[in-house]
């Protein structure tokens, strides 16, 4: 019997697959592919968390991409006379010390977050996928070696590693990106490796081999499509982590450089004027929270719908 988390979270009681006559359960599943896809979509859309997540994520992307069109002001235009203005109709989220519009800076800051998230997560995902498959399919010594490397990288608390690196190189967006990529590769690689290992021993890979399928074909046609799914879900859950790392480092002054607006630098500047302009740390924190909520909800909903057995939490 398996408890399906999606059912729990959609308010349905757990479905009992064995109490339910399995032949029946199967015939249900067999009904038709299209129906099943519709079913998944329905499950996803009726899951309020999934829907909320989707909306928030779309907002995240849209606001970042269209920031130049929707931002009421240029993010770096100074307007010193109206500095540290509270929220008004002219400046919905107030202004900072140089009179820059906080809302506009938040919108533009989303572009930095998007850049970090998109580049960081995709590079880490692809590298992790490749390394994980190599570890899963390669010889045992290579697997052990890669595992050891993954363990080592994971042994560094992210921020601590970032601090150590920045101590030597100085802060920059590129450095943040590099750290984010390096520290998130192991988790993708481990998931990819685990899936690859279980796939490697699965009957269908053996069946493909028995038909004469070569390594390339096995990897590209049979292993990869099955590994990518869980990794995509992981990636969705990883976006907020990455965005938060950037924000945290920028908050410490070790991330992107001014005047570039990023949520971290807004928080940093906001922290410095927290007694004069408390709205800056509040306004700067909200997109971070919403993005985290959005991707977490979306990732969990995707996982529940497509892969209810995947590991929870990290």
């Amino acid at each position, binding site marked *: 019997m398996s408890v399906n988390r999606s059912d729990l979270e959609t308010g349905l009681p757990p479905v009992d697959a064995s109490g339910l006559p399995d032949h029946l359960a199967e015939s249900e*599943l067999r009904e038709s*592919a299209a129906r099943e896809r519709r079913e998944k979509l329905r499950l996803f859309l009726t899951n309020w968390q999934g829907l909320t997540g989707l909306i928030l994520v779309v907002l995240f992307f849209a606001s970042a991409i269209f920031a130049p069109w929707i931002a009421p002001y240029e993010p770096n235009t100074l307007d010193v006379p109206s500095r540290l203005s509270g929220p008004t109709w002219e400046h919905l989220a107030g202004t900072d010390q140089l009179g820059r519009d906080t809302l506009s800076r938040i919108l533009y800051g989303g572009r930095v977050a998007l850049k970090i998230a998109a580049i960081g997560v995709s590079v880490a995902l692809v590298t992790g996928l490749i390394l994980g498959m190599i570890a899963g399919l390669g010889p045992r010594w290579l697997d052990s070696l890669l595992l050891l490397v993954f363990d080592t990288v994971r042994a560094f608390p992210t921020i601590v590693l970032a601090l150590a690196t920045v101590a030597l190189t100085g802060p920059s967006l590129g450095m943040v990106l590099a750290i984010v990529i390096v520290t998130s590769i192991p988790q993708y690689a481990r998931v990819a490796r685990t899936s690859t290992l279980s796939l490697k021993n699965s009957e269908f890979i053996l069946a493909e081999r028995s038909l004469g399928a070569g390594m390339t074909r096995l990897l590209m046609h049979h292993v990869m499509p099955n590994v990518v799914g869980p990794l995509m879900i992981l990636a969705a859950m990883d976006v907020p982590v990455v965005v938060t790392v950037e924000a945290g480092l920028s908050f410490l002054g070790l991330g992107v450089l001014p005047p570039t607006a990023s949520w971290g630098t807004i928080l940093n500047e906001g922290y410095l004027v927290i007694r004069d302009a408390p709205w800056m740390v509040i306004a700067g924190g909200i997109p971070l929270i919403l993005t985290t909520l959005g991707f977490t909800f979306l990732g969990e909903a995707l996982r529940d719908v497509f892969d209810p057995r995947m590991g929870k939490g990290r």
Partner: protein
Amino acid sequence: MPKDILEAPETLLDIRNLSVDFRTPRGRVKALRDISFPIRKGRIVGIVGESGSGKSTVLWALLGLLAGNGEVTGGEVRFGERDLLHAGEPQLRAIRGEEISVVFQDPMTSQIPVLTYGRQMRDILYRRPNLSTAEKRRMAVEMLGKVGIPDPDKRIDQYPHHFSGGMRQRAGIAMALLTGPQLLLADEPTTALDVTMEAQIIHLLQDLQKELDATVVVVSHNLGLIAELCDDVVVMYAGEVVEAGAVREIFHNAQHPYTRALLECDPARIDDVSRKLPVIPGDIPDLTRPLSGCIYAPRCQKALPVCRETQPPDVARGEMSLARCHLLDGPHRDPDWPPPPDVMTVGQGEASAGKPARAKRDDPLLEVSDLNVQFETVGPLRARLKGLEKRHVDAVLDVSLSVAPGETVGLVGESGSGKTTLGRTVLNLVAAQSGSVRFEGREIRNMPEGRFKPLRRDMAMMFQDPVGSLSPRKSVRALITEPFQIHGITGVDLDAEAERLAEMVRLPKPFLSRYPHELSGGQARRVGVARALALNPKLIIADEPTAGLDVSVQGEILNLMADLQAEHGLGYLIITHNLPVVRHIADRLAIMYLGRIVEEGRTAEVFARPVHPYTRALVEGVPQPDPDRRRVHVSISGEVPSLLNRPKGCDFAGRCPLAQDRCRAEKPSHVTMPDGRRHACHFPLA
């Protein structure tokens, strides 16, 4: 021996009009509809049915342990004065484990892995506050001893994973009987076990029932087990009881067409070896849809128009004996129904084209000789740490075997016998350490994949798990045509090929666009066959071709395979643990035990006159679906030893009733008898 039916024992538990629904995202599944039958005191009642019949749901419903989405929609279950369906949770809890206890299907998953047996059994006795912990332990040890666990006072402190499968099921029985319940429910108690183990558990249950004078309900799909063990039988189909009665009535005078068909499909009941097995066409109905008429009507050979519209009557023949069919009573009564037992009521597909002319014996398609396969069990470092000298086990040991074109060879063995490894080694999926594998006279053992690849067109494999052996993200069409792509065969219209193959394996065209998880076991199996056949191979290695299939549909696959063999002159190596099935399709049998072939010969001869004691145990180990042919003793005891502890002498010596000192000291070599049979036994049976 069955008890005298005339004793008319009192009813211990009475199920009346029980209905259960499951709420699923796809709608309500009416899993049980209006189930009624009594369970009489002191008897062993069997509930038999195929998957989807709802037989296990009955058990969970009466314990009040349906899953969260299950819901009892009607009926009552009388247990003494109480109605279990409407009892409160505390009352039910008082009954569970004390008055009604359960033996579970899969002892691997139904015993908590992180607690010792002692702890688990003490927990079961928690309602006995006047017993001291020591006394509880003594009771548990005693019960473990009673179910045949050696050294119970030591083993009680072990965890489930320390026990072998059979031992674990014995422990499960001990736990269930610890409190001395009035009613013991057993849910598929032997399904997870090997044949030789199954026989032991059946006898254990029988003995204990007698000794403790308990009432037992056994749920099973295994007709042989039901016939051997039960006094009363309830036959279920798609959530309904279609027939119930005493065991002899059911097996010798089945009234319902489904019961009849089910019995006829059981290969163990069929004496003639025809290479064709009977089949019930069609599928179990969708229970989310509104139902009308007889639930079995869509698949029934004798269905009348009325069957599809009107609910058939329950025709009673005596106490707790009834059948639900229009043919038996009322206006549609058919006096010729049921026909005599020797008349077949279900079809066997079209008549066989007959066996093709066999190629000459001296020209084998596949010839395996003295093949050895070893697996590494511990890493070099760990071996040194533990002081182990031997880091490998012999999965396959000195195996010689041949398959001629057009011939079907059955490779039979229990789990862990190395039969699957052997099949994979032949196909170069597993490396072998020594020996030779020749295909059409060419040495192919450990051939590099590059050179071996062209040969894969001639040799194909069907894997054990029908769905699991299909790449999950590929459509059936892509799967079927993949062999062409792998071998770079151009100039074929892939769509046309896909349709041709689908037709060949009788898979409806719309299925081509489906994905593996959208297929039933039987359909997926057909896809597997189509893939194997795509490139017109000469040899097919089929690993458990009927695994996971119900009795009523396994014939379809076997018949299909037989037809294809007749048509293309294929050689088959069929790997299976299922003796009754293989008996119908194999020309020759090879019996494997612990990686060695212990006996090999023509199927009929092997069955009629086993030479090796293990073969005899296997043949006798299959429970006969005939209550008049119950076994009185179990020919072998114990379990297949682990490959790690391969005996020094004959591998079977530890369990062989005829073993002598020589057997324990010296490994018997293979001997060819004058009639061509080969065996490995110091003291072959006459």
